[in-house]
């Protein structure tokens, strides 16, 4: 084990996998000579050279399509988005091509490609740079969506994503790149895609949160613990496929659930999880499932407004008290 920043854990996963398999390459804006917009790929150009660490022009539709073609023809690309906000320019490639060509070819091709970068809000950046896209992407069959909350998961899940033969969207966060944590140095450290992590065991209420929202969930849990409650916290880690089994087992135990999710509320990740819980565990629920999302608005710029926009520990805590009938 070593203590690494989240960006270092992501880099370690890429470096180890690229050393293991020369068909893996990293491509994106500023990944090579600039050393990464957020320094995730720092030093990788020196290690692997320009054949395998490749700067692109600002042309997401083009270079994502290029990655898809390279995957179709035997390589294993890692494509970095400077942020997933810019993945919108490549939406056609992601939704119409990488998710569907395998199907439309009757299974003749596979697409071992990772599309990774920070997702969600990162501060006072206003509406175009602050969107959470996992609910939009996760509606599309053919994709896998991973969204990580800590350095150890980042490494173990990214290594799995790189080795996966299906396309994986791997979502990080600008806000967490500097976060430190103990990370396994096992070269084959693989966390399976589709397995949630029960971060805190408890019996009173299940709080579900991924990526930054996991930390919101944990903070709310602390507030509840200080009042004598015993919350359970689950980090789904993978949005598609979702580890429904772990979630349902938890809800059957606690009988109450609050979902924290940075997506805008309409048709969000929380919507889907909430629906699945009512269908699979209706008789076990002692209160309606509640959710704490970003507001149903574009992300604002002003400091007080963006703080109000984001799902907060305070709101999560209040929602938990509501389902606990503690108000």
């Amino acid at each position, binding site marked *: 084990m070593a203590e690494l920043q989240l960006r270092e854990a992501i880099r370690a996963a890429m470096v180890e996998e690229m050393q293991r398999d020369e068909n893996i390459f990293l491509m994106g804006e500023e990944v090579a000579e600039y050393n990464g917009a957020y320094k995730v790929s720092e030093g990788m150009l020196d290690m692997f050279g320009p*054949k395998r660490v490749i700067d692109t*022009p600002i*042309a997401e539709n083009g270079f994502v399509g290029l990655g898809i073609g390279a995957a179709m023809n035997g390589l294993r690309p890692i494509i970095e988005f400077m942020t997933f906000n810019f993945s919108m320019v490549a939406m056609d490639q992601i939704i119409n091509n990488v998710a569907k060509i*395998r199907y439309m070819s009757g299974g*003749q091709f596979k697409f071992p490609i990772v599309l990774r970068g920070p997702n969600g809000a990162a501060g006072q950046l206003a509406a175009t740079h602050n969107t959470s896209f996992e609910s939009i992407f996760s509606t599309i069959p053919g994709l*896998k969506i991973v969204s990580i909350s800590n350095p150890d998961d980042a490494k173990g899940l990214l290594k799995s994503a790189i080795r996966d033969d299906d396309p994986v969207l791997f979502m990080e966060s600008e806000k967490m790149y500097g976060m430190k944590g103990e990370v396994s140095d096992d070269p084959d450290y693989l966390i399976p895609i589709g397995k949630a992590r029960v971060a805190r065991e408890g019996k009173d209420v299940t709080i579900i949160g991924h990526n930054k929202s996991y930390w919101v969930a944990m903070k709310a849990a602390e507030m509840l613990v200080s009042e004598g409650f015993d919350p359970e916290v689950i980090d789904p880690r993978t949005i598609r496929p979702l580890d429904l089994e772990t979630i349902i087992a938890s809800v059957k135990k606690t009988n109450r659930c609050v979902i924290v999710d940075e997506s805008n509320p309409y048709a969000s990740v929380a919507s889907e999880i909430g629906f699945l819980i009512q269908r699979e565990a209706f008789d076990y629920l002692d209160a309606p499932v509640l959710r704490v999302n970003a507001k149903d608005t574009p992300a604002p710029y002003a400091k007080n407004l963006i703080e109000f926009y984001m799902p907060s520990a305070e709101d999560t805590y209040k929602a938990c008290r509501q389902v606990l009938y503690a108000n």
Partner: protein
Amino acid sequence: MASETKKKTTKRTTKRASTAAKKNGVHEQSEFGVAEDLKVSFNTYQAGAYTHTELGISEERVLAMYENMLLQRRFEERAAQMYGKQKIAGFLHLYIGQEAISTGTAEAMRIGEDSVITAYRDHGIGLALGMDTNACMAELFGKIGGCSRGKGGSMHYFDAKLKMMGGHGIVGAHIPVGTGIAFANKYKGEDTVSISFFGDGAIHQGAFHEAANLASLYDLPAIFVVENNQYAMGTAVERAAAEPDLYKQALSYDMTSSLVNGMDVFSVNKAMQDHIAMARENKPSLIEIRTYRYRGHSMSDPGNYRTKEEMDAKKDEDPILRLKSYILENKLADIGALDTIDDNVKAEVMESVEFAENSPFPDLDTIYEDIYTQKDYPFLT
């Protein structure tokens, strides 16, 4: 003799010339590295300019090319009939009139090593590369014996073994994918090339421009081929293109380009031979092939945007009739032999219809197959 002519041979004087010129305090353009005598350099491949012997094509192969073009024609004529009988549904875009492009290209390729990617008018190139006629027809019928197991239909033909990479339905979206295929060819150290076909409508998509820039920037073994059949659905080129000479787009991406008569299979073949040779040396390029689609955009298109006179005039240029005349004039075969080829092709197509009729519909369980490689993916139900 090979008679492609350099229309304008003036090389672009500079890419990033840095010679500063200043006269009386006024900056000349050259200070900014702008070529003052900027001219387009391109090759032309005209109809009737090439013989099969010049191109290194044997008499036997000429007849095989004729058979191949005829197979595409007869296959689609029968498909149109089956569409009328409601055996085939959805969109059916016919390639009739453009067969010289597919066959001329296939003859210049190393099939199975070099790859092709195209848009939704894909039956012609699929058959030209040697896709199984039965599987192609069964795909149109939506049967499990189809080349995509009934999941792709007319617009989505694929054959991994032949490196036929589709068959794509979104205009222009496959062009970056073709560029990525070229990227992998080079990355793996192969001398194989990737040919991306698209229509005159697609060249206006940003996807083409991003792909062309990337291919040239990374020196990829990619060939971009715009099949200019004059109409993007019902919109004539002149109504969509600020610059209707589409080959000129190569200038922006520092690529060689050519203008080809697409009604002569030998002109196409010569252009492809030359451009494939360039691509094998990691020099990407653009080819504009002027062609004509005899049928509507799809089966529902009444074609009100063009006149009968225009259609009739173009039919005199039919690439299959042209090759037939060439074969007879050069005595490569007599009319009886050509009729036999036609009979054989028709029989092959009829057999494919029978195969398609008899192939079962896909089991409902197959709806969950071919999405992920993961066998136990937990689909929501």
